[in-house]
């Protein structure tokens, strides 16, 4: 009997790996094809030639200034997606990344403009402040959820507008801001707070790209290689099962909200420490929401999200070009939306199909194994308990 059961085991393992690869490729492929088809239909419906548009986008995207722009844009996108994904992995929807990173960047800018520390210390101080502020802001939502049972979706949305008001209050002439033409912004950071950058042509690439890579690696390591990560994923997969296994779900909610907020605190740093050196009324907003789309697009996977962030930045960049070529500006927003929907739907379809397939295969293989075993020793009891 043991040989009879072992034989199909080897086969199963091989075919399971093959299937896994096929399914893993099938989902993104399906999503891309569907997204292209639907986007083309949108172009056609608006009376434009889709292929000319794709041609313009591909052409414009391969200039080196476009590429630098895309990478620099993708860095905050990626950090934002990481922040959202930490929540997603345990079924928390942190919509408040937007408020968290803006408040964090504002606080860091305000402190950075007032304090001068030597060299790297200044940068470390500002990053730590940003992460702390982000964590505190999202931690409020975590605490409200665990102590009062308020949905984090509601609280994080509300905290977004509270953050905007707080910034608006302090970003006034005579408070924490200085007036500069039409703009109000915090005092410029000292030279010591400028993050290094890669001297690429025609514009430099943010050195913060290194931090983003490190953050992605940490995210992967924490979730898939540590006890803490296992607990977090267990809560995400099944709260009652995690609770019975000994995870304190409430504690986990607070911790993961804090982590998510800390990651959100990093989102504004590449811009603050690499380009603007102050927080003003023109500081980029809305990256927190983009992060949600990219986390969905990348399936919360560190590499998938990196790809998603680059794709998103590519569409932002090349889409602006379409406007010059006579296309409606909104078309890029439509394409981005279509891509996210296609990815979410395609992955769900493939996931369900994969589960069903596996269930059927397991049944078939066991039945086959049982038949062989039954033929070998018909008169012996099959269960040797």
């Amino acid at each position: 009997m043991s040989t009879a059961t072992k034989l199909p085991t080897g086969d199963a393992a091989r075919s399971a790996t093959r299937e896994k690869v096929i399914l893993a490729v099938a989902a993104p492929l399906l999503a891309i094809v569907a997204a292209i088809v639907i986007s083309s239909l949108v172009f056609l419906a608006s009376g434009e030639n889709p292929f000319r548009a794709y041609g313009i986008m591909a052409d414009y995207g391969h200039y080196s200034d476009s590429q630098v722009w895309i990478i620099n844009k993708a860095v905050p996108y990626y950090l934002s997606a990481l922040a959202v994904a930490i929540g997603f992995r345990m079924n928390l929807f942190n919509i408040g990344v937007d408020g968290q990173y803006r408040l964090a960047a504002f606080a860091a800018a305000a402190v950075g403009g007032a304090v001068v520390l030597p060299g790297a210390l200044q940068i470390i101080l500002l990053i730590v402040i940003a992460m702390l502020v982000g964590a505190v802001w999202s931690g409020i939502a975590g605490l409200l959820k665990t102590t009062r049972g308020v949905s984090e979706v509601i609280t994080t949305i509300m905290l977004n507008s509270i953050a905007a008001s707080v910034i608006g209050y302090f970003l006034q002439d005579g408070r924490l801001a200085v007036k500069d033409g039409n703009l109000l912004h915090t005092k410029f950071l000292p030279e010591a707070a400028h993050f290094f950058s890669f001297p690429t042509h025609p514009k430099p690439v943010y050195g913060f790209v290194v931090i983003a890579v490190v953050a992605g690696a940490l995210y992967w390591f924490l979730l898939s290689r540590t006890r803490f990560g296992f607990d977090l994923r267990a809560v995400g997969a099944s709260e009652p099962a995690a609770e019975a296994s000994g995870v304190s779900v409430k504690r986990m909610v607070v911790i993961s909200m804090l982590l998510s907020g800390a990651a959100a605190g990093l989102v504004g740093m590449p811009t603050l420490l690499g380009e603007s050196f102050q927080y003003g009324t023109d500081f980029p907003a809305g990256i927190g929401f983009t992060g949600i789309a990219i986390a969905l697009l990348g399936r919360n996977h560190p590499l998938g999200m990196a790809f998603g962030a680059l794709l998103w930045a590519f569409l932002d960049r090349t889409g602006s070009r379409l406007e010059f070529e006579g296309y409606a500006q909104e078309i890029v927003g439509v394409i981005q939306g279509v891509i996210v929907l296609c990815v979410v739907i395609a992955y769900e379809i493939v996931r369900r199909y994969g589960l069903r397939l596996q269930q059927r295969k397991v049944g078939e293989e066991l039945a086959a194994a049982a038949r062989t075993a039954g033929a070998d020793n018909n008169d012996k009891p099959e269960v040797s308990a």
Partner: protein
Amino acid sequence: MRRGSVHALCGENGAGKSTLMKILYGMQKPDEGTITLDGHEVTLHTPGDAIARGIGMVHQHFMLADNLTVLENTVLGAEKLHGISGGARAKIREISDAYGLNIRPDVLVEDLGVADRQRVEILKVLYRGARTLILDEPTAVLVPQEVDALFDNLRELKSEGLTVIFISHKLGEVLSVADDITVIRRGTTVASVEPAATTPKQLAELMVGSELPSPETRDSTVTDQPMLEVDGLHLTATDSDGVVRTVLDGVGLTIHKGEVLGVAGVEGNGQAELVEAIMGTRAPDHGTVTLDGTDISRTTTRRRREGGIGYIPEDRHRHGLLLEAPLWENRILGHVTERPNSKGKLLDIPGARKDTARIVDAYDVRTPGIEVTAASLSGGNQQKLIVGREMSHHPKLLIAAHPTRGVDVGAQAQIWEQIREARREGLAVLLISADLDELIGLSDTLRVMYRGRLVADADPAVITPEELGSAMTGAASGHLTADGDTGTGRPASGGAAATGGDQE
């Protein structure tokens, strides 16, 4: 299947009973083969098709809305048939009288007992015009008296010309109610027998191709060293209507090393809450829990698990497994802080995988590998994995809630054997089960739980399932004996066990 008969379908779990029924009810499509109904070949795509053709299904887990009345539950989704008030009420009365279901249409479902709810489920199906009824393990939640009443209902239905398909693990019941029996094993029909010409033993042998297992524990291994002491446990809960109910009321019990303490009771009488209080997932209002001399009343679930509590949860899908995670991740679940699953703060993935393979092998979990998701295993194999996981950490106390529910006879025998073996080595077991044979056969001591209290105790050596059943409905309390025995049997056997314990 003949019209106007009760046809029983038996087989191990994973044998294909549920799949067959899902096909009959249109929930799943067959790869090949045909279904013939009244001489016509039919194809059923959805449960709607099945209902339209007079096939109705009563699921193992009731599908009723607690806060609606029986009438409202019945017309829900079938409003077009007889309206939603007068006409429907008359129709319900008519069906109820015709088949002796004894249903009161205006009672809230939440006020009904399990047996009444089941009758409502049957009524719902009949109301939709079913002529063929599929009952999926209808007796799993009933006490013996209620089972008899259900069988009377089934005979009534049969005499009115309806066909009943009855799925069950309990062979005695099958033999008492069925006119024909089909046994299936691993997806194929292995035999069609007539109840008059067969015995439970033969039937079980057909099902598993092996001897009928029995849950009897041979010799007592009870020692006099207490392992788990629960004292004065009191718990109140607020239900959805804001009414405060007492769920546990002064519950106290002691389980010694090597002892299996069985708790009998109709579900919903506080057993689940008792388990949660001991596991630490629910904080009682007062009372203490002591494990092996250490007060664990205030410690976290994780500490309690690390301290030696093994847990086989009642609902393995909700509390025991991560269904979409591979088997080796499920092996880590609940023991993430222990070897071989982790070293320090980091997971030891190779260690966990290797040990999963060992469990699969040692506990005969039938799977093509440890990479498949837990959801793709059959119920019995999922349970074997859970038992293997919990036993692998050598618990001091095992909480086994319905350990063999929905598990085939083969796996059942194995699980019983593992509990017995661990008990010989000094494991204390808290066994909660609706299967009275299992309780009586496996336990050293029996307690009966009714409305949050331990109302009666009994000696498993002399008690019958019927006596236990009546205590479960609250009809009897105190020390249950066959005929007024003063209960000298327990201390005597306890003493004998103590000597047995010394020898080890």
